[in-house]
């Protein structure tokens, strides 16, 4: 498991793309928003938490099809499926790698981009906390989407279509934590719900991912 983790991390780092592209996409979304809604700082401050969450979600989505596609193409997914490691664990590791290469950079970049959107300073800690808590759920749900569409000829768009509705609860609670936090309101309830969604999907989604991959490898 550790070997797989290190291998995937190394591949993600060296192949380029994954890491940098997600961040660049996040940056571009955040930069484009003021052009679209106007430079009024008070308006931007209101929508900043939502925009940051949406940007993070979209750049997560963008990097999903790379999770399994490369392993599928060179056949290492078949080897992983027949290895002594349970396929559920493989899927879990894939999600962890995706989170380390996409989620963590997004969390770290969010405060900087928050300044661009005039995010109130008390909101910075909450956007980091909510993204840090929510992106693992985004990653594992994304692995499910990637597993559903692995090997499809035009899987990219379908992948987004399938994954987006699944992201709704995470987005609602995550953005709610960030929004309430930036306005200095109580955040306990959405925070606990977000943590619950993350914990629940981390526990159960690998099973669904593995089941789907088995079907697609048949």
């Amino acid at each position, binding site marked *: 498991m550790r070997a797989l983790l290190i291998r995937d991390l190394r591949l993600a780092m060296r192949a380029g793309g994954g890491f940098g592209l997600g961040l660049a996409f996040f940056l571009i979304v955040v930069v484009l928003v003021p052009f679209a809604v106007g430079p009024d700082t008070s308006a931007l401050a209101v929508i900043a938490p939502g925009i940051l969450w949406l940007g993070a979600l979209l750049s997560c989505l963008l990097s999903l099809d790379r999770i399994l596609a490369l392993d599928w193409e060179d056949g290492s997914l078949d080897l992983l499926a027949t290895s002594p490691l349970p396929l559920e664990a493989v899927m879990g590791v894939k999600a962890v790698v995706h989170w380390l290469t996409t989620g963590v950079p997004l969390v770290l970049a969010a405060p900087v981009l928050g300044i661009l959107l005039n995010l109130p300073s008390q909101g910075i800690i909450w956007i980091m906390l909510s993204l840090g808590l929510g992106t693992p759920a985004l990653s594992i749900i994304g692995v*499910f989407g990637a597993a*559903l*569409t692995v090997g*499809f000829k*035009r*899987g990219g768009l*379908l992948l987004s*279509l*399938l994954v*987006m*509705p*699944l992201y*709704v*609860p995470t987005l*609602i*609670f995550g953005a*709610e934590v960030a*929004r*309430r936090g930036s306005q200095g309101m109580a955040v306990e*309830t*959405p925070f606990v*719900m977000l943590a619950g*969604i993350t914990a629940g999907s981390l526990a159960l*989604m690998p099973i*669904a991912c593995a*089941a*789907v991959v088995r*079907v*697609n490898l*048949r």
Partner: protein
Amino acid sequence: MLEQKQKESTKKPMSIWEYANPTKFLRLSARLLPVLWICAATFIVGGLIWGFFFTPDDYRQGSTVKIIYLHVPSALMAINAWFMMLVSSLVWVVRRHHVSALAAKAAAPVGLVMTLIALLTGAIWGQPMWGTWWAWDPRLTSFLVLFLFYVGYIALWQAVDDSDAAADLTSILCLVGSVFAVLSRYAVNFWNQGLHQGASLSLDKEKNVADVFAYPLYMCMAGFILLFLALVFYRTGTEIRLRRIAALIARERRVI
């Protein structure tokens, strides 16, 4: 030969699983379908005429209240169609009856259309009543999310060539999707309270609907349920025949 088969089926205790056999299913649906069509048409037409022409206007809503006879039944079926897909997906995953998977496939577009009808009639109703076509009310929003789930489910069916793999993938999507759809329902409830404190565009008319409106409404609901059943039986039959044709074509190719 037919008699022999009938004897066999009478010998065994009747069980619902017998209709997992496509031939038996088709025979049953051939017998049921005319009845279902006629009942559905009678109930819907009767309910609508009763509702539209023989009930008084609401004292506050005027005639717009009559949209209820389309809105509520279609919303009811939009949810129950997904529930039926969930059950038949489970049956496919556990017992691997092809008819069950095909029934789920057949129900999806019906559910999608029901969701659309509910959303559209809701918008037409909302315009005069709330002064807006659309509000991010929890119920409206969760129906929109349900619509997205239907679209994704149907798109996945169409994207996979191998039919068994498609059935497997879509059933797992249906199972996972159901969990997340329920989660979204409650998340949306929470989110809207967070947005509009105390604003209650409660759509729950069921509680204070007078009997005058309720009886034609029940009739329309029964009609929509029958219509849904008829459509699902019909479309499942079509899917079974489509698959038989595909099998025949494949066999012919092998012979040549």
